[in-house]
C-alpha cells in the first residue's frame, strides 16, 4: 500500500491573510496547532509526495475549458497568484514530481476521465494548506483539482469514483504518498455574507464523512447545498474524494465556527487508510 496518509483541512485566504485582524487569537492559535499536528502526522508517515485535492478559484481553469477533474504534471509550480502581501504568503516555487504525476494520471484514467496540466499556478486553495503542512515547500506536491466553481459540476458519485481511482493509482506506485482534500464545508466566501457558517450542517456532514457513510454523502445535491451551505458548500467534493481514497473511518481533530473572519468553519481531520 503506498497511500500512507489521508486527511482533510480547510483553506481560505483569511487564514493567513487576515491572521493579524483576529480578535479570538486563542482559537486562531488552536487552529494553527491542529494544522501543525497534521504536518507532523504527514511527516511521520514518511510521505515522499503530497497529493492536494483542491477546489481552485480561477487561477488556471476558466469556463472556456473547464475540466471536471485535473492533475498537475510538472516538476515545479508557482504560487500564490494572489498579491502576496494580501495573502501574506511570499511568492515561491513549489516542487512537483512530473514522473509520478504521469503514472498517477495513466492509472487514474483506467476508470475516470481526467485532464492533466503541465502548467499550474497555485492560488490560496493550495498555498494556504502548504503554508502549514510543508512550510519549507520541500515536499513534492501533486495538485489535483475538482471543479467546484463553474457549474455544471461533477455529480458526487463521480467524485467518489474519482477518489477511488486516485487511491488505486497511489497503490500502484512505489512511492509513499500522502493525500489531503482541502475545501470549505458551509460558507459564503467572497460575498457580503462572508463569515456566515451553518454549524449544524457542517457537523452533520462531518459525521457522515468520517463514518464513511457513502450513501448519505452521495445523497447531497447542489440545490440543497447551495441553499443551506452556500456556494462554498460545493467544495465538499474535495472532502468526499479524500474519504473515497482513504476507505477507512475518520477522526475529527479540530473544528471551529468561532473564526468567522476566516469565512469558513475551520476543519482538520484524518482518515484511517484502510485496505
Amino acid at each position, binding site marked *: 500500500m503506498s497511500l500512507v496518509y489521508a486527511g482533510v483541512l480547510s483553506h481560505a485566504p483569511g487564514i493567513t491573510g487576515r491572521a493579524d485582524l483576529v480578535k479570538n487569537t486563542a482559537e486562531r492559535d488552536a487552529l494553527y496547532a491542529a494544522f501543525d499536528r497534521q504536518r507532523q502526522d504527514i511527516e511521520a508517515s514518511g510521505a515522499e509526495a503530497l497529493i492536494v485535492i483542491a477546489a481552485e478559484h480561477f487561477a488556471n481553469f476558466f469556463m472556456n475549458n473547464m475540466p471536471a477533474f485535473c492533475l498537475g504534471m510538472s516538476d515545479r509550480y508557482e504560487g500564490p497568484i*494572489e498579491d502576496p502581501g494580501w495573502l501574506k504568503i511570499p511568492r515561491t516555487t513549489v516542487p512537483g514530481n512530473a514522473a509520478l504525476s504521469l503514472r498517477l494520471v495513466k492509472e487514474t484514467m483506467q476508470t475516470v476521465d481526467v485532464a492533466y496540466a503541465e502548467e499550474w499556478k497555485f492560488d490560496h486553495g493550495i498555498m494556504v494548506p502548504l503554508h502549514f503542512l510543508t512550510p519549507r515547500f520541500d515536499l513534492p506536491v501533486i495538485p489535483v483539482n475538482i471543479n467546484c466553481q463553474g457549474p455544471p459540476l461533477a455529480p458526487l458519485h463521480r467524485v467518489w469514483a474519482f477518489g477511488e481511482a486516485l487511491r488505486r493509482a497511489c497503490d500502484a506506485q512505489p512511492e509513499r504518498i500522502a493525500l489531503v482534500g482541502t475545501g470549505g464545508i458551509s460558507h459564503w466566501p467572497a460575498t457580503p455574507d462572508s*463569515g*456566515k457558517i451553518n454549524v449544524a450542517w457542517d457537523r452533520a456532514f462531518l459525521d457522515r464523512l468520517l463514518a464513511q457513510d457513502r450513501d448519505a454523502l452521495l445523497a447531497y445535491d447542489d440545490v440543497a447545498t447551495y441553499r443551506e451551505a*452556500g456556494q462554498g458548500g460545493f467544495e465538499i467534493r474535495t472532502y468526499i474524494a479524500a474519504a473515497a481514497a482513504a476507505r477507512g473511518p475518520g477522526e475529527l481533530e479540530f473544528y471551529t465556527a468561532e473564526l468567522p473572519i476566516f469565512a469558513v468553519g475551520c476543519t482538520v481531520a484524518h482518515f484511517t487508510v484502510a485496505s
Partner: protein
Amino acid sequence: MSLYQLQKFLYVLNREPQAQARYRENSDDLIADYDLTDEEADALRNGDIGLLYVLGVNGQILMHYAAFLGIAWFDYLELMRQGIARHGPVRAGVYTLTGGGESFTPEERERPQ
C-alpha cells in the same frame, strides 16, 4: 450583457503579470480586447467592485481583483453592499447576497469607522 467576457477579462488580469502591466498603463487598451457593454467597461475602468458584484462576477474572481487593486478586506465587503444598495440585487451567478447585508464578522462590526 456579456458576463462571460467580463469574467474572462478579470480571470486573465488576475493571473497574468503582462495583463496587469497593460491594465496599469492604459486600462482602455486591455478593455478593448473584450466584447463588453459600456456598463461593464466602465465598471472595469473605474475598479467598481460594487457594480461588478451586482453584474454577477464570480466572487472568487472579484475577490482576487479587489486584492490586486489593493482594497482592504472589510472595504471589499462594504463595496459589495454599496453596489447592491446602488444597483439592486445580484443579476447573475451564484455569489448572491442571502440576507440583508449584515456583517457576520465581529472584527468588521467593531472596527473603527
